């Protein structure tokens, strides 16, 4: 099926997520869509698959203009989407997942459905057991199930959102082989990714998005350097770098080994000096969040040791980490970091040291007033936290940090903030470094990573690079590294 997007715009409140995108994808083509987080890839795909309506613009399928009202409508019209976290029903069986939403008579013929599942999966080289429960499958197998289901529904355009995150190399091979086969049959495949290597080996054509715009398209052979430039913008002006390294080791990881349902991170060893800033780079879901939570004492390591100032914290409860001056600032501010329904004053009192049993509200308000002024928070002591803007919430989170701290762990410290707020927040963080705190932060903003880090760790599918010197790393190199290129070396 030929797909054409004409002048697609999507505006959310203040954000122009898609800005005049034009793209033609002929049948039988595997189209790569590249772009960093927030570039507008997901929005565009959600428009094509019926989750969003475009603010402006037109979608053409086989040269006929169509309106796609809902995801189910999209499947009816032949467009199916495989989500990064497959939209399936984990507690149910493979065959039930396969059947839900499939039109037909009241009582489905399971035997027949299983036979058809078998027929399609044999062709694609998958081997799912119809009676298995989906929560016992790997992510790769759950993707296979969704692909089989969408094909059974008669989908002729298949959108895959970051399908290679969290799946094994073998499963990736299977997936790619299947996609190539489908393309040969005349299906249109749209492959959304930020992994250059995957796009390079698989796609017939690549389009790059940045800040909601289509920057350009490229045909093979792909010029990786050029693609990185298109993704991340070439000119990056780095401000003055300040390093506060003190020389003595303060934070130490010894062969730290981590595991969760999706990823396995083999031994990471790291020695960090007081005052040093370590940036954790990598595409979302590559293991950096797990790593950071392990450093905070929220995830127990499978092996290895963590110590701060020569105190071994391995296997200790979260509370002990707090006592040793470790602070963790999650990315989901309102979900994890702050308590909606409580005021700024209440937050400061909660995070501060309890002085006796009774609260001195007058004192509390005074402290809140001071911190509000100190951190330039737009709000009053009585403001409920959810009424503040994102930037002010982030400042509030920083203002909640205790004094002194040995280790500050941050997830996306400046995500969604304007430039002024970002600069402000890093100034405050650098003050902490000057006092000797170590900072580990996750970011998907290459500029931020290069500007503020002393050293960088790059994560890719659970693999962790040896520390890179941020000063001697270029944007291109980092971009390729994040995309999984140049790891063999």
């Amino acid at each position, binding site marked *: 099926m030929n797909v054409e997007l004409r002048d697609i715009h999507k505006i959310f409140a203040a954000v122009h997520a898609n800005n005049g995108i034009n793209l033609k994808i002929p049948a039988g083509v595997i189209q790569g869509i590249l772009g960093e987080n927030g570039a507008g890839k997901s929005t565009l795909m959600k428009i094509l698959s019926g989750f969003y309506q475009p603010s402006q613009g037109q979608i053409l399928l086989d040269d006929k203009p169509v309106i796609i009202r809902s995801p189910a409508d999209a499947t009816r019209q032949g467009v199916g989407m495989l989500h990064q976290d497959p939209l399936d029903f984990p507690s149910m069986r493979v065959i039930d997942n396969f059947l839900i939403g499939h039109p037909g008579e009241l009582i489905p013929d399971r035997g027949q459905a299983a036979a058809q599942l078998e027929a399609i999966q044999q062709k694609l080289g998958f081997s799912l057991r119809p009676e298995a429960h989906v929560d016992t499958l790997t992510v790769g197998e759950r993707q296979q199930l969704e692909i089989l289901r969408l094909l059974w529904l008669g989908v002729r355009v298949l959108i895959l959102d970051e399908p290679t995150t969290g799946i094994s190399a073998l499963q990736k091979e299977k997936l790619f082989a299947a996609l190539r086969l489908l393309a040969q049959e005349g299906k249109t495949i749209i492959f959304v990714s930020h992994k250059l290597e995957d796009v390079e080996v698989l796609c017939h054509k690549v389009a790059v998005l940045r800040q909601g715009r289509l920057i350009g398209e490229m045909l093979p052979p792909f010029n990786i350097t050029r693609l990185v430039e298109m993704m991340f913008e070439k000119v990056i002006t780095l401000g003055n770098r300040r390093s506060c390294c003190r020389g003595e080791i303060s934070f130490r990881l010894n062969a730290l080994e981590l595991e969760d349902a999706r990823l396995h991170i083999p031994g990471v060893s790291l020695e960090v000096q007081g005052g040093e800033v370590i940036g954790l780079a990598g595409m979302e879901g590559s293991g950096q969040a797990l790593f950071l939570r392990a450093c905070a004492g929220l995830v127990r390591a499978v092996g290895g040791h963590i110590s701060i100032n020569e105190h071994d914290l391995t296997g200790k409860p*979260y*509370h002990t980490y*707090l006592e040793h001056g470790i602070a*963790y600032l*999650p990315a989901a501010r309102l*979900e*994890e*970091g*702050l*308590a*909606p*329904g*409580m005021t700024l004053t*209440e937050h400061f*009192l*909660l*995070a501060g040291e*309890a002085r006796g*049993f*009774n*609260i001195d*509200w007058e004192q509390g308000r005074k402290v809140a007033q001071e911190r509000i002024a100190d951190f330039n928070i737009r709000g009053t002591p009585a403001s409920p936290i959810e009424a503040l803007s994102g930037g002010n919430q982030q400042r509030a989170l920083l203002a*909640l940090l205790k004094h002194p701290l040995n280790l500050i762990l941050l997830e996306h410290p400046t995500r969604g903030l304007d430039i002024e707020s970002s600069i402000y927040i890093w100034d405050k963080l650098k003050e902490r470094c000057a006092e000797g705190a170590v900072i580990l932060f996750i970011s998907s903003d290459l500029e931020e990573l290069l500007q503020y880090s002393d050293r960088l760790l790059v994560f890719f599918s659970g693999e962790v690079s040896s520390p890179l010197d941020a000063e001697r790393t270029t944007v291109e190199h980092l971009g390729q590294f994040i995309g999984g290129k140049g790891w063999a070396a």
Partner: protein
Amino acid sequence: MKNLRWNNFLFQLVAFLLALAFTSLIMVFAGAPPISAYVEILGGAFGSVNSLANVVVVWMPLLLVTSGLLITFTAGLWNIGIEGQITLGAIFTTAALRLLQESSLPPWLIILLAMLAGVAGGALWAVMAGLLKTFGGVNEIFGGLGLNFVATALTLWLIFGPWKRPGTGSMSGTEPFPDTLWLPQLPGLRLSPWSVIFGAAAIYLVYRLLSGTYFGLRLKAIGKNVRAAFLLGVPAWQHSLLAFALCGFFAGLAGALQVTAVYHRLIPSISSGYGFLGLLVAMLVNYQALWAAPVALFFAALNIGSIQLPIMLNLDSSLSGVLQGMLVLFVLLTEGARKRWLQKNG
């Protein structure tokens, strides 16, 4: 901000009127005269010193129970097991009284020890619900309900089994205690000034606890966002258990009062439904502890006032429960409507 408060007040007024109107409609449907019914209720509650005293007899345990529930509500817990906690308070108190009544201890000390036992019983039952939730994965609603049934079963077994009256056990309860083991009462009335002292102290203490202490603040944080509270260093499950224990403490005290100040024995329905009624009061006042006092008074007055209804108008006294429930229901509904209205016009 001021506008918003006015708007809030307006919606609550509407809720009150709607509840009243709806209840009246039900009465009309049942062929009862609404106006006379309301007059009877008012008269029944406030018509004489005696009836007023009876209102206070209901008001105080209700206030104790509500005080406890405000703590668990603040921590985001639905302590439906409150009925059982009152009952256990009563059972433990009765047990202590039975154990000590033959002893040579002075009566005041026996009563004191018995009330302490009651408090311990209530707290124990509440902590069970908390443990079931924290370590058993059983939602506190279902754990609490189950424990309520167990408490009822225990009461019946005691009344008809080991504690049965000489001769044969009956639904009228255990053998009454001698009046030396009663909490002192006001002359000629069923009311003990001690209940008033306990009730007033409870609501004041809880008000202080929730609005003026770090403990209260931490409970609030757990109730609002348990994950954030944990990350900010609040030991979450320990605080939840403590909230349960404190709530059980007050419920147990209410149960102890039912034995020492009201019934002077253990009866099958010793909790008088104050637990569930307290849940309604706590929902209605929406975390504002001081409002619990007037609202609980209003509910108590409805309970006592409606006792007249069967005699005077041949209506069932459960009308009070209908009105109380309707009130909460309409407050919840108008609150939802208000939020939607704010979203659209905000």
